[in-house]
């Protein structure tokens, strides 16, 4: 077993386990390559507005949702 770096945390991104060094939601999005795309986010079931992503700190096992417009009925 690899010793885990103290900086690396495992979180769930859209239901998929993801290891990240990001400390905030904004850093995570940038690390994953979401860039400036048109999407919205939630952290542990609570909405995180675009402007609040830099303040949203991540903790191990956090659940992150990243969603975008789609067809619907």
């Amino acid at each position: 077993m690899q010793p885990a770096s103290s900086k690396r945390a495992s979180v769930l991104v859209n239901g998929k386990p993801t290891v990240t060094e990001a400390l905030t939601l904004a850093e995570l999005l940038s690390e994953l390559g979401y860039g400036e795309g048109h999407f919205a986010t939630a952290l542990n079931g609570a909405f995180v507005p675009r402007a609040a992503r830099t303040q949203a700190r991540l903790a191990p096992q956090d659940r992150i949702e990243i969603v975008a417009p789609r067809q619907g009925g």
Partner: protein
Amino acid sequence: MNAINPRSAGTSALSLYGVDVDSRLLLGTARFPSPQIMSDAVKAARAAIVTVSVRREAARANTGQQFFELIKALGVRVMPNTAGCRTPKEAITTAQMARELFESDWIKLEVIGNDDTLQPDLFGLVEAAAVLCRDGFKVFPYTTEDLVAAERLLAAGCEVLMPWGAPIGSGRGLANPYALKSLRRYFAKVPLIIDAGIGAPSHAVTAMEMGFDAVLLNTSVAAAADPVRMALAFAGAVQAGRMAFEAGLMERRDMAAPSTPVAGTPFFDLERP
């Protein structure tokens, strides 16, 4: 001037949360064979409001942006939904994400209570509606024909209700016309939109003749062999049903009543039994 405006055809305007809407047909955007056919169907249906959703987006996919551009180009009002949400919390967060994405405070609120029937969880629905109304949303709750739930939704701040005709995607029409009629009678001033279960234009005509303010449908158009032609058919049906309602339908009778005058009937003989 006898020209009829094909969009309203002389029917009165529909007002939803203070916004005048010039079409009584709301169309979903899902399950179409292609984006082009979806766009053509929205135009053919003369829909003024379309429903959309939010779904998980992969990094660098940009799928959402492309879809949003397509929808914006249609020039219609967008109503995001909370489809698939099973708890008030999921629905509330989804609504908040949708508001940011679509820059619209209109939300079709769905809190699903049963996977097989996609029946609304009325308790969760009322709870979520109260939170969202307080948060400034214009909530369009997908509900059943239940009158008490309807009262609770109105008390929670909803100004429009969307009772189902039948389960989503079932195409069964109005499964409980008696209860829907009661709902219509009881809430005479509340905009009521039949959402879900409409499978054929005849179902839409029936709903509109009963005095419902609009219908929201998706699968019946999207899954038709020719969705654009079906959209046209529904546009005509909704218009015909509304005009009939406004014109006032005749009373139904149990026995026949001759339409041709009886007086002066040839060979008429009072003595003849």
